């Protein structure tokens, strides 16, 4: 190697350059040969001409180079001026405003329910001094409970009748607007359950307002805690019936926290609550409640009841109906839609 070293350093640059050139030529030849082999393989396998297009297609997809157009030939803001017809209110809306308009119009977005809530609260505050409390409940609750149930969503504020945008005359047409209430709301006799099917009743009884949830989640009437299906008189009579004449009528149904049940004075409540879940709990649960029912107002089911009541604490407002169910249980084994007015008939 030493000889080569010496010879290498002794060689002039031209020789080195010649060697470098030869090396370079070898490399280029390698590349060309490689390319030839690729082409030959492509020809023999048949994919060599695959990426060619016919002249007609080439003309179609030629790059466009005119001012105001993109390279595909499309105009830039073509859709700004287009108008769409809203399927709900049948107005023609600008395309860029269409989505927000639909959200408000159908009442299904996040913002629309918030705005509707606020409007209801405002209109309620305004109307409070004017009319009777019960009537207000009736008018204000129509859009969240009965009419909107038809839409499949319990809290859907479809076409809020109290929206300030609507004309005043609409206020009196609430019943017609909300799609012909299946229930005949009558202040004196309460709701008539016979007209309801089991599914409607189930949904009605299970989705009572729960004040624990935030307003933005559901469209809730924020005023009253009492259900609109019964009057105060009815509630008072039921309470007296079960708790004795000394029962205190609470202004607000505040005993929503059932975790700490006082055994002594809440037994009646517990027994009443046994019927809360009968329509929608599993058969095993209703079965246990059945047996406890037959035993009388026993404490044996207290733990299960407190569990049930944890889930259904909002059903305290329907306590009256539960007790009504209890008395009827002995007559029929498992009534799907317990007829609540019967208890009121007894009392009245």
């Amino acid at each position, binding site marked *: 190697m030493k000889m*080569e*070293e010496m*010879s*290498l*350093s002794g*060689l002039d640059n031209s*020789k*080195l*350059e*010649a*060697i*470098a*050139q*030869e*090396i*370079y*030529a070898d*490399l*280029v*030849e*390698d*590349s*060309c*040969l*490689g*390319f*030839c*082999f690729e*082409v*030959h393989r492509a*020809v*023999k396998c048949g994919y*060599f*001409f695959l990426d060619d297009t016919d002249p007609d297609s080439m003309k179609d997809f030629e790059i466009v180079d005119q001012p105001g157009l993109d390279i595909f030939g499309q105009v830039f803001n073509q859709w700004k001026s287009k108008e769409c017809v809203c399927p709900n209110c049948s107005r023609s809306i600008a395309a860029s405003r269409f989505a927000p308009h639909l959200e408000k119009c159908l009442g299904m977005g996040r913002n629309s329910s918030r705005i509707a809530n606020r409007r209801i609260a405002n209109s309620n505050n305004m109307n409070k001094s004017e009319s009777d409390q019960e009537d207000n409940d009736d008018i204000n609750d129509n859009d969240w409970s009965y009419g909107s149930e038809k839409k499949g969503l319990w809290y859907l504020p479809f076409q809020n009748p109290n929206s300030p945008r609507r004309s005043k005359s609409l206020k009196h047409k609430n019943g017609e607007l909300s799609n012909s209430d299946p229930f005949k709301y009558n202040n004196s006799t309460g709701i008539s359950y016979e007209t309801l099917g089991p599914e409607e009743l189930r949904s009605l009884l299970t989705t009572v307002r729960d004040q624990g949830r935030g307003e933005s989640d559901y469209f809730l009437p924020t005023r009253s805690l009492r259900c609109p299906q019964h009057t105060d008189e009815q509630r008072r009579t039921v309470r007296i019936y079960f708790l004795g004449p000394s029962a205190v009528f609470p202004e607000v149904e505040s005993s929503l926290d059932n975790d700490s049940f006082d055994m002594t004075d809440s037994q009646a409540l517990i027994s009443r609550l046994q019927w809360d879940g009968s329509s929608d709990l599993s058969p095993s649960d209703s079965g246990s409640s059945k047996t406890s029912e037959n035993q009388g107002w026993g404490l044996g089911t207290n733990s299960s009841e407190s569990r049930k009541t944890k889930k259904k604490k909002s059903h305290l407002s329907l306590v009256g109906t539960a007790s009504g169910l209890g008395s009827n249980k002995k007559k029929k084994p498992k009534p799907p839609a317990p007829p609540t007015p019967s208890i009121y008939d007894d009392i009245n």
Partner: protein
Amino acid sequence: MRRDVQILRAAINQKLIETGERERLKELLRAKLIECGWKDQLKAHCKEVIKEKGLEHVTVDDLVAEITPKGRALVPDSVKKELLQRIRTFLAQHASL
């Protein structure tokens, strides 16, 4: 003299392969040729040749004979210069080995 050069060349080639420099140089050249469009030019030329000869009757020898001289000629000067530079660097590095 000639034999020395030949021996020298053999030694250098061996060195190139051993160190892996030859592979690196080849990859570099291939990348540069694709970048500068050499491959596409040559492909267009190929298509003409094949259309001339007929798709079924193309042989490797034909292609090589047609393509290689054109390919050598089409290499851009910048690519050539850069590659030569790298080779000279390599030689200078390994001169003292």
